[in-house]
């Protein structure tokens, strides 16, 4: 009997303590700050200053939210985001690349941020915000915060140029002359990673100067063709540079890593990409006396429409069906506010889209790029070439790679791209 009583007593005590614990836990959760999940396509190594900044933010009890940064490092990221954005409880902030951003913005999956930016008092570059929505964006809605500004550029090895007494080229003719000298001295002139996006980046450079953004916007809205004669002419400039060995044909076989390895090892004197790749060059060149810069002014055509093609790396967005909108906005205000942005400028050498926050730039590439941007950060100079679906972009890159291998002409490349585009539209 006593055993029975004792066991009943024990059961009551355990139940009471369980109820008490639950009560304490729920009381605690009521006072806890909401957690904001941030999905980041990049790896932590690409934003090395963020963990400390976020930890400091989270440690300050006066801040309204706790930020949980998830660094995915590209692999599988798009699939993960796709699944999360169709769920009932999506992450509060997601990083989207251009092509996927367009799809989500066009589908109405993302929150419009014009008022949010105004409330924060951020003086964003109008050129960058001009393309912060779907391509068919009559209300000029802003559906994401565009991150760091890049310019499509040509890096050059300052030591090789100084040793050979070469002038930095400023147009196609001077580039061909420099390439000839470099080739004679056993150097490759320009290398690039033509097995991926660098291929399209070559066209973006000439297209921005020769064609501008108007034709592409029309093409995206079905009012013009991608294989327009002016686009073919822009790609013809690239093909001529390949035939003159100014762009080394070995680029057709290279990934970005291969091209950077050739550039940093001194086998190639120049590397074509965008300024965002300076971080990768620095990591490969760490511990060496390698010195480089970007060509500040280069005209692929006479009287270019834009001095340089400008792009942003990605968009930072809040899903429309997010559960805790205030928390998402609070975290966004911190992550894209002055403190973090200035730290990015100083620590990572990135150029942000609020001009006043760029005062701390010291990296030679960033300093030159900011000079380029000063004259070109407008909507017209924007790098729009890659705002197509992944399939069309992939086809364009593959075509340019085949062109560098000498297998197809510029006309065939763009005809093929247009055909794939039409085929895809019919499929959808």
């Amino acid at each position, binding site marked *: 009997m006593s055993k029975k009583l004792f066991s009943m007593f024990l059961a009551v005590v355990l139940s009471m303590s369980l109820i008490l614990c639950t009560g304490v836990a729920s009381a605690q959760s009521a006072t806890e700050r909401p957690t904001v999940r941030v999905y980041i396509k990049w790896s932590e190594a690409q934003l090395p200053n963020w963990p400390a900044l976020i930890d400091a933010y989270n440690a300050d009890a006066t801040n309204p939210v706790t930020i949980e940064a998830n660094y995915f490092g590209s692999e599988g990221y798009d699939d993960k985001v796709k699944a999360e954005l169709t769920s009932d409880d999506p992450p509060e902030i997601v990083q989207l690349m251009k092509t996927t951003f367009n799809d989500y913005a066009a589908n109405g*999956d993302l929150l419009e941020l014009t008022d949010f930016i105004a409330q924060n008092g951020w003086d964003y570059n109008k050129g960058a915000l001009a393309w912060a929505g779907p391509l068919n964006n009559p209300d000029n809605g802003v559906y994401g915060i565009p991150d760091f500004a890049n310019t499509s550029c040509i890096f050059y090895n300052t030591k090789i140029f100084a040793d050979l007494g070469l002038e930095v080229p400023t147009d196609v003719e001077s580039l061909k002359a420099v390439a000839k000298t470099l080739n004679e001295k056993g150097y490759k002139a320009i290398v690039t990673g033509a*097995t991926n996006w660098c291929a399209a980046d070559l066209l973006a450079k000439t297209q921005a100067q020769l064609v501008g953004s108007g034709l592409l916007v029309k093409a995206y809205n079905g009012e013009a063709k991608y294989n327009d004669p002016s686009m073919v002419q822009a790609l013809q400039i690239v093909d001529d540079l390949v035939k003159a060995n100014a762009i080394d044909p070995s680029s057709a*076989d290279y990934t970005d890593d291969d091209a950077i390895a050739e550039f940093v090892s001194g086998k190639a004197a120049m590397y074509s990409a965008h300024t965002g790749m300076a971080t990768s060059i620095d990591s490969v060149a760490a511990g060496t006396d390698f010195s480089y810069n970007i060509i500040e002014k280069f005209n692929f055509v006479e009287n270019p429409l834009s001095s340089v093609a400008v792009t942003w790396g990605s968009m930072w967005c809040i899903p429309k069906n997010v559960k805790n909108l205030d928390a998402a906005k609070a975290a966004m205000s911190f992550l894209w506010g002055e403190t973090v942005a200035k730290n990015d400028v100083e620590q990572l050498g990135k150029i942000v889209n609020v001009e006043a926050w760029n005062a701390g730039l010291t990296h030679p590439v960033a300093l030159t790029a900011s000079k380029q941007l000063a004259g070109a950060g407008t909507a017209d100079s924007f790098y729009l070439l890659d705002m197509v*679906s992944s399939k069309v972009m992939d086809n364009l890159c*593959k075509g340019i790679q085949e062109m560098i291998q000498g297998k197809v002409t510029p006309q065939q490349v763009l005809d093929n791209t247009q055909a794939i585009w039409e085929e895809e539209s*019919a*499929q959808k």
Partner: protein
Amino acid sequence: MKRSIRQHRSTKWFLAFLTPALVVYTLFWILPILLTGIISLTDWKGTSRLATASFVGLKNFQNLFHDSILSTAVINNLLYGLVMIIAVPVMSFIVAYTIESFVHKKVFFRTVAYLPAILPGIVTVLLWKWIYNPSYGLLNQFLDLIGLDKWTTGWITNSDTALGAVTFTSIWKTVPVYFVLFMAGLQAVPQDLIEAAVLDGASRGQTILHVTLPSIRRVTTIVYTLVFIDTFRVFELVYAMTNGGPGYYNTEMILTYAYKTTFTNSNASYGMAISMVLIALIIVVAALQMKLGNRLADD
């Protein structure tokens, strides 16, 4: 009466053992295939809720006939499959037969030959990407060394060599899987039959052709069927090694294209239509192959 109770009991045991496997198989194989079939009849893009999708009938299947990239992928897959189906069983048999003929160190050679099969797919890809690299790759360095520097190239980034390079890697990875099956088959060949053939004056070639090979017909049928299925299931090797490139889809396979269409290009219903056709093709051809193989084996 007793017999019927025994039968009833054995049926119960049969069901008890079968049910877990059947549940797993239904959940992870049958249901996804059914769901794939249903989605392939809609316009679901994969970027919105499935409930918002509309029924479009056979439109996605009609589009298959006007897809130029799919045609390239099918041709690539057939070329790849042809080489695999010729090379893999033959090489697997040669490796198995050679190792079985060894008197000493048989276990050691079996282990060495089997090593590529136990390497994870991604390790195989990294290893071969390094070998094929245009700047520092082992293959180019070797060609340089023997004076064939004109042949050096980016083996998986050159449009002319990429499919061959990927196929070679796949053979390297696949042969060890099947040589084990042949080895098991060879160990089951009655030794007295071989001895009788030798006593009758048959050469080694004649013994292989008229005694060994007919004795392992069933194994051969299984190997051919599995290699055939594998050729259409090729995915991670191509995806991680070349991602369907270089150039105009030179190594694109049906499954890599279906995956990209579904996930990367945000056209899920169409991607699933491609997968459905592939599943149907594999089921039909594999069934025919098994039937034909079994008939030959029975003969």
